């Protein structure tokens, strides 16, 4: 009930305020325009949160100093620590970066955000920003109407900067006019009491506005207009620094354990920094005065910017040596529930915010689906995984694996695979339309890969019934044939494992096509083996029918798994991989290669002098 009343009540108070004071209206409009500018800026940068940012994030977070620098630089450029926090939570949740890397970015973002205060204090309050805002708005709108996503993104960024400038100008003018009617500095409270009260106000204002940057600009313009005392402005900036964590906390609510850990790290950092600033406010003020005299900062606004930077740097110096301890504490505090296969690990609300992270999360979850299905398949075929993925020859592994394990595929399928695939399909349908056709195509391919994995498992389920009986048959011919089936399935699984662990230097499609050729060769009807077995009375016609059906099931399963593997492990994000997939051999080319081999026997290998010249 109270929640429902908050919005109308706030609107009424604002309207009453507008009626009472036109200057208050102008300041509020300034805040509104500024916040709208932030939204446009965030929207613009989200457009670029595609491949470039993704690749940059991966490279910039393997070391603490790198992630720290990334946090500082990106927040300085974007001028929104909230966007960087949300982006980091999203990337962490989708498994793109590590927790330590995420903590580094968040710490860096805290320092990067202080550059905003410097820009406004040193530049924004001295010149008329409206002059700059107009051309930015015009060019920004012009770019938004372009077809290209990059142009649109740049348009939103320009529009965002334009609105930020306009908002600052409105606030500045509002406060200057306000000064002639009401003197807010009369309400300034001195001493420790004032420090605590104004810290609380700064915190509340940031929670309401969801932007520490907007609050800081408001403080700076108020301070420049003489409506705020310097001490109270310092307290407000401490409060706004703590209040900014609320955006990350809200953002982490829909994320997984890692996202929650990161939001907690953000909160711990800012609350520690805030407490240190409150406790040592006297020392900080002395340090600010000393540095100001040293570098020649005269007005209160630049001194406030210096204070803001100084206490964030102190926080960084205090917290940096504790990053590993903090990480260990957070991992212990926020228990990740044992990743029961039934529940998705990578799909959550926070990754939905960016098209790129949602696509990556779907890929990771589909890989997890494959891993789950692969375990069920190896158990169903009574193949020990440790041997299967060793250097030993597959026929040898298969020949030794004779212990019959009765695995209930139906139960495992319903509990683990079906629920997981259902979650993937549901997630894809909820994402809505991603930003570009490549991302849409990737999602379509991942959904289809999931379907292939499910189909493969169903085929193995049909095969398992006869296989468990005949793999220990007294008839060696029958046993051999079922061993052959197990062998080519095992070959396929090993090839997929090689593709999964391949580096960029490996020719993945070679493994892929080799597995497909191996599969095509194992056709007992086409190569006459089945006829021969029946003619020589080594198997009964009934067994022959079972064998034919089971070969089909095994072929279908392997083809489905290879198709899924091509999507998940060969067709990666890079253009080189996309091109490589195009060189994979088609059905006819594979058939031609096998036929040529059958006709000529062992062919001679092409020697370098006869080779086709690579242009």
């Amino acid at each position, binding site marked *: 009930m109270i929640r429902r009343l908050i919005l109308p009540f706030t609107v009424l108070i604002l309207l009453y305020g507008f009626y009472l004071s036109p200057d208050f209206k102008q300041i509020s409009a300034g805040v509104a325009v500024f916040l709208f500018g932030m939204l446009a800026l965030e929207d613009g940068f989200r457009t670029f949160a595609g491949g470039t940012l993704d690749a940059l994030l991966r490279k910039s977070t393997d070391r603490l100093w790198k992630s720290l620098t990334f946090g500082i630089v990106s927040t300085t450029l974007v001028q929104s620590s909230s966007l960087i926090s949300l982006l980091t939570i999203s990337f962490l949740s989708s498994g793109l970066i590590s927790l330590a890397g995420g903590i580094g970015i968040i710490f860096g973002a805290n320092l990067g955000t202080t550059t905003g205060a410097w820009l406004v204090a040193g530049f924004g309050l001295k010149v008329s920003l409206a002059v700059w805002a107009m051309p930015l708005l015009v060019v920004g709108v012009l770019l938004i109407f372009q077809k290209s996503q990059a142009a649109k993104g740049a348009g939103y960024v320009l529009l965002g900067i334009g609105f930020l400038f306009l908002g600052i100008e409105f606030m500045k003018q509002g406060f200057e006019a306000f000064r002639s009617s009401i003197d807010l500095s009369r309400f300034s409270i001195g001493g420790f009491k004032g420090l605590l009260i104004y810290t609380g106000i700064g915190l509340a204002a940031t929670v309401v506005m969801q932007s520490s940057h907007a609050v800081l600009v408001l403080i700076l313009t108020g301070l420049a207009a003489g409506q705020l005392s310097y001490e109270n402005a310092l307290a407000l900036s401490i409060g706004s620094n703590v209040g900014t964590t609320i955006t990350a906390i809200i953002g982490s609510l829909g994320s997984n354990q890692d996202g929650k850990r990161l939001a907690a790290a953000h909160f711990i950092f800012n609350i520690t920094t805030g407490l240190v600033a409150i406790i040592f406010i006297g020392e900080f003020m002395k340090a600010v005065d000393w540095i100001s005299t040293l570098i020649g900062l005269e007005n209160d606004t630049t001194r406030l910017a210096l204070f803001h930077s100084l206490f964030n740097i102190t926080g960084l110096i205090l917290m940096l040596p504790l990053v590993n301890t903090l990480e260990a504490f957070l991992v212990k505090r926020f228990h990740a529930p044992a990743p029961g296969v039934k529940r998705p690990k990578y799909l959550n609300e926070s990754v939905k915010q960016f098209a790129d992270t949602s696509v990556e999360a779907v890929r990771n979850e589909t890989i997890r689906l494959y891993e789950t299905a692969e375990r069920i398949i190896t158990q169903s075929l009574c193949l020990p995984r440790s041997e299967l993925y060793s250097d030993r020859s597959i026929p040898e592994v298969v020949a030794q694996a004779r212990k019959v394990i009765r695995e209930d595929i139906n139960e495992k399928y319903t509990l683990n695979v079906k629920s997981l695939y259902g979650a993937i399909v549901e997630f894809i349908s909820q994402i809505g339309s991603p930003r570009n056709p490549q991302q849409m195509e990737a999602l379509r391919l991942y959904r289809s890969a999931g379907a292939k994995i499910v189909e493969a498992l169903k085929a193995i389920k049909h095969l398992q019934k006869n296989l468990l009986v005949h793999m220990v048959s007294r008839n060696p011919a029958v046993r051999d044939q079922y061993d052959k089936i197990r062998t080519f399935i095992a070959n396929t699984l090993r090839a997929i494992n090689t593709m999964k662990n391949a580096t960029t*230097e*490996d*020719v993945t*499609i*070679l493994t892929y*096509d*080799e597995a497909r*050729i191996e599969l095509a060769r194992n056709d007992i009807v086409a190569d006459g083996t089945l006829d021969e077995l029946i003619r020589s009375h080594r198997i009964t016609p009934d067994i022959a029918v079972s064998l034919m059906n089971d070969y089909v099931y095994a072929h279908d399963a392997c083809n489905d798994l290879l198709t899924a593997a091509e999507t998940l492990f060969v067709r990666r994000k890079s*253009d*080189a991989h*996309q*091109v*490589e997939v*195009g*060189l*994979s*051999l088609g059905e006819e*080319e594979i058939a031609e*290669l096998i036929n040529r*081999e059958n006709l000529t026997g*062992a*062919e001679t*290998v*092409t020697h*370098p002098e006869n*080779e*086709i010249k*690579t*242009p």
Partner: protein
Amino acid sequence: MKLKALLSTLSELLDADLRQQSQEYDELKKVLKKMKKKRNHLLDELESAKKDERERIEQQLKILEAQRKKGIGVLKELKANRSKIKSG
């Protein structure tokens, strides 16, 4: 002549199709180079391989050769397309 080259580079930058084809061409060249390296590596392995290993390597070499042949065909096609767009 310089102006012609400049115009050609500029049109390549502005034409999205041409830019994409050019990118694809470069990527394909890289992939073919990687394949050639792999082929040479396999040929080295073949010299010291035992009989059962030899069969596997020979098989891989045949596949690799077929894939490279396909790749070179695509590369030629891309090159022809590019010059067609540029000229016309």
